């Protein structure tokens, strides 16, 4: 089965930093680890009906977490910074 846009885009990252980036038409998402830049571009374009100009991705490694004497790593994940055509916006980043 072909993955849908919602399988690829896991959630929007809404923080101070991402809000600042959104002013430059750059939107930040957590995406599936297996997703490629091309997958992400297609998914964002489809889900939000926008034009994607470029996609940058970062693999965010899990952090070392300790729980009592045990320790382990939190899930690592993939972050995608999606640049849209100037002037286009995604409303969920604006509190709407």
């Amino acid at each position: 089965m072909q993955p849908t846009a919602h399988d690829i885009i896991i959630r929007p990252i809404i923080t101070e930093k991402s809000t600042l980036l959104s002013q430059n038409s750059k939107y930040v998402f957590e995406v599936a680890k297996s997703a490629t830049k091309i997958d992400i571009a297609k998914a964002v374009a489809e889900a939000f009906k926008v034009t994607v100009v470029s996609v940058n991705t970062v693999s965010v490694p899990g952090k070392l977490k300790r729980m009592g004497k045990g320790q382990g790593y939190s899930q690592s994940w993939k972050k995608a910074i999606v640049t849209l055509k100037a002037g286009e916006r995604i409303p969920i980043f604006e509190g709407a």
Partner: protein
Amino acid sequence: MLKVNFVGKAASVATIEVVIDHEAAVKAIDDATLSLGRRVRIPGFRQGKAPKAMVERYAGKPSILQEALEDLVTSSYRQAVKDNDLKPIADPEFEGLDKVDLGSGKEESFKMMIMVEPEVKLPDYKGFKMDKTIKPVTDEDVDKELDGYREQVAQYIPSNRDKVEDGDMVTIDFKGLLNEGTPEEEAFEGGTAENVDLLIGSGQFIPGFEEQLVGAAKGADVDVKVSFPENYGAEHLAGKAATFKCKVREIKDKIVPEKDDEFAKKLGFEKLDELKGALKHGMEHRNYDSAVRALGVEALNKLTDGAEVELPAAMVEDEAADMLNDLARRVEEQGLKWDEYLKSRSTTQDAMLEDMRPRAEAAVKQHLAVRELLASNNLRVTAAEVDRAIEMMAGRPGETKPADVKKLKENDRVRSSVGRLVAQDKAIRLLSGLCDADPEAGKCKQHHDHGHEEHEEHEGHVEEAKENAGDEVADKE
């Protein structure tokens, strides 16, 4: 624009209408969002850094609107007070505030009722001219005073009589027992003492005790059987029968010094007449002082009667409630239950409150008149004066524990009621000076130091000036 309109004032309540148009509403919402944003913590943002839209989503529209309305109320209240020069004495009440919807986009309005310090119009008290009535001091009065003094300095000399008579001072040991002669016989606390001086006929002990000692021989053992009165202070003893096993150790005669020159000499006078003269003089001073005071009291009553003031209903109600509480406390101090007290007088709390009303009104009116009088004469009651008054009322050191006195001093209710008394006293003194038709009448012509009112008054003013610097007014209500 936010409009704050003064609608009117009646019975010391100012009514203010606040009109909020769309523009003002939007601004208020914006401000509220900002200030909320400064307070709420939204994940992903440092505190206060979240954009407005985020704040709105997080806090919710209703709480933003509420915040905005609260801000509007505060600022319009401040503006109303400032613009109309109001002196509020209580929190304002609102009308139609719950119907205001800032998000409606339409013009909204509500009303504010602010209770303000009532305006008091005092009559022309400077024109009150009254004569004081000084009670003349008669020779009989002097004799009575002298007798009283002789009683006080009476000495007790061991007597050679061996039977106790009324008026004797006896030294006794006693041991009080409850249920005497039964297995439950027990001594009780405070019921046993040795070497106690008791003046027979002074009524110092419980009724019946002293009488039963009359006729007892010196050195004899006497059983005094008495019942404690029903209203006796110690509850566990009240109404109980007890037997006091007493031993009369000593019988003393009461020796009252004779009224003669020798007595006068002991007190530093040459002759008895001189002593009488001095006594008379002192009494004249006392009578003069009390006449001055009575005049002040009368002037204050006249001032209160003549004062024009719209009594704020809330103040009267508070006063009546205070009076009722006072009464309830006194009733319960006497060991009665308040409910039962009400029942026995076949009345209810509400009816009592209604009964209190005229007195409460009078009290509030006098209080307001006094305040206005002091204010218009640049007098005020300082915190230090209230402290002093509380100390005086608490009694001599040792009578009330210092910690308790301190507690009293820190009690706002006590402070405000004592402050009122102090203010009243000040007013009386002020008026007694102002309204005396003939200040010279009856004044002592001799130059000497008797601790005259004027001296005190003068010192008082100097102190006041010192204290006023940075001192809060004790009488804030």
